């Protein structure tokens, strides 16, 4: 038990230190990066809850982020703005204007509800079939977001969300997500689910209802994704469906894989490492573009580096940086070794 508390303490401590340092520095750019990182943490932890415990790769996660973002958008865009940003919105919901904080929660709940409805049958599938159906689910969600103009303004940019996400809110959510992810992993459901990950047949034979266990994890993951998406919406304040597709899926997946999908520690460290690398590369890209070294704009450099890093990590350390043990357990073991020796 103690090692779980150590893990939670260390990981949340990291987030707190980051908040304090950012506040002390007071640089706006760092503020933005820190908020992005906290939102990424919520998203990656959501993916970890499902993928890490069930061992099944899911591409649909970012789709639920989109569901959360659009839900909160519809509920919070000020009524006088709605005529402009969502001209075709159904009259019944056009008059609603909620506080962003309530709407963020609702965004998560709607994403979880959508996940609960569509995913139950999919959880029976394993291996490649499961991956392909989750990919199909992402495409379905993306197609719906791109074309349901009444609610999402179609493929065009949706604007007018009030800016509500600040560093404290994002960091708070990240810490809650850390605690929830560890708690779920150690819960009865999490334990059973992990046993099905390690040996599906044996777990099934012992009486684990694998489809239902996966379903529960999937819903929890979608809840995280919805909340993360909604917070991101209130941070960025305008977005289009393009923001919730393969590119973002790749980034979130990269974070989880580099850190190690099976552990919460891995998800947290992966998110931190990738965000820091990404932001520095993006700054480099912007620098190159500003200096006009090349005749055309440099784009895609960051993704290339991330792709190479992912391949390298998987070749050298297939389980990611933290493959099996949480940081609390690792430190605990080292301390015990010292005592013995």
């Amino acid at each position, binding site marked *: 038990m103690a090692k779980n508390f150590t893990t939670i303490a260390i990981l949340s401590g990291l987030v707190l230190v980051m908040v304090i340092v950012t506040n002390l520095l007071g640089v706006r750019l760092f503020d933005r990066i820190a908020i992005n990182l906290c939102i990424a943490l919520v998203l990656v932890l959501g993916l970890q809850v499902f*993928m890490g415990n069930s*061992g*099944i*790769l899911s591409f649909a996660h970012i789709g639920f982020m989109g569901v959360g973002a659009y839900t909160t958008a519809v509920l919070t865009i000020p009524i006088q703005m709605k005529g402009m940003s969502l001209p075709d919105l159904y009259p019944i919901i056009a008059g609603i204007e909620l506080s962003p904080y309530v709407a963020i929660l609702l965004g998560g709940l709607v994403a979880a509800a959508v996940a609960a409805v569509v995913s139950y*049958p*999919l959880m*029976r*599938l394993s*291996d*490649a*079939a499961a*991956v*392909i*159906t989750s*990919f*199909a*689910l992402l*495409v*379905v969600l993306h*197609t*719906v977001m791109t*074309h349901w103009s009444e609610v999402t303004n179609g493929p065009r940019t949706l604007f007018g969300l009030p800016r509500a996400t600040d560093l404290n809110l994002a960091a708070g959510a990240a810490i809650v997500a850390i605690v929830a992810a560890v708690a779920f992993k150690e819960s009865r459901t999490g334990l059973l689910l992990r046993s099905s990950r390690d040996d599906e047949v044996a777990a099934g034979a012992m009486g684990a209802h694998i489809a239902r266990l996966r379903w529960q994890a999937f819903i929890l993951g979608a809840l995280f994704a919805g909340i993360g998406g909604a917070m991101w919406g209130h941070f960025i304040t305008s977005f289009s469906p393009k923001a919730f597709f*393969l590119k973002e899926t*790749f980034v979130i*997946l*990269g974070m989880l*894989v580099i850190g190690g*999908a099976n552990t919460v520690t891995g998800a947290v460290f992966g998110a931190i490492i990738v965000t820091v690398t990404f932001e520095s590369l993006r700054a480099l890209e912007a620098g190159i573009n500003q200096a006009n070294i090349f005749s*055309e704009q*440099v*784009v*895609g*450099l960051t*993704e*290339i580096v*991330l*792709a*190479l890093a*992912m*391949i390298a990590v*998987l*070749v050298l350390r*297939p389980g990611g940086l933290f493959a099996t043990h949480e940081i609390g357990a690792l430190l605990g073991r080292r301390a015990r070794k010292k005592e013995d020796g």
Partner: protein
Amino acid sequence: MSFFLQFMIDVLSLGGAYALMALGLVIVYGILRLVNFAYGELIMVAGYTMYLTSGSGLPWLVMAAVAVLMAVVAGVATDYIAFRPVRAKSVTAVLITSFAFSTLLQNAALLFISPRPRNVPLPEIFSETVQFAGVITPARNLITIAAAVVMLVLFSWLMRRTVLGIAMRAAATNFTMARMLGVPANLIISSAFAISGLLAGVVSMLWIGRIGAVVPGIGLEPLLIAFIATVIGGMRSLQGAVLGGFLLAFMDTTLNFTLPQDLLKFRDAFTFSLVILILLWRPQGLIKGPASGQRT
């Protein structure tokens, strides 16, 4: 009658292209049980080769041959970079490395060529129309049907009559057993990737023939189509992939004719939902493949 003929030509030409796409994906999956997410980028590679060689003044057929060759090279490269180092580890690892390799190629095209569409040279005949039996149809539809028939015949000859094909089918049925009987694993897998690249190259010519330009994201749609077609037909069966391709083309064309305009934009959502339903009903797809052996 002429409507029926028109409908059949549409289905067959679309289905031919879809079937080739699906075959390219399933030949790798059959042996390795691994999905190649970088498959769509092979199509992109062939397209950009066409664009890069377009200034050379070579005849179109030579350029097309070079492009197909580049797709084959890219296919084998996928094996060496994304598959071979992690093949024996976890399924998830390979899925992710192939996804990473796909992103790598796409962004390389973004970085080194351009995010904007680039025109690809096409022979005159691709833009002409043909009229027969009261039906007017673009010549490229008939070319697609012919190319698909030739490729399918060639492919089934290769798989049934040659040593390589028989070894590949043996490896797909029971990889360990085939290895024990002296089938060289790496060679078989590389050949599967090379054939996959060849199919992708041919598909690329046909696919770009419809659009006339190439963009970094061009591979996504063929990849999705190949996914759906293989899932419908059966992930492990080559016949299943062809069947799935034609079935998907039939569904697409039918939906095109029957769905009202404002629902048509959701067509992809409809087809993908259908895929999910089929997988629930028959997780193996319509045609079951050979009995499954152990993965490498």
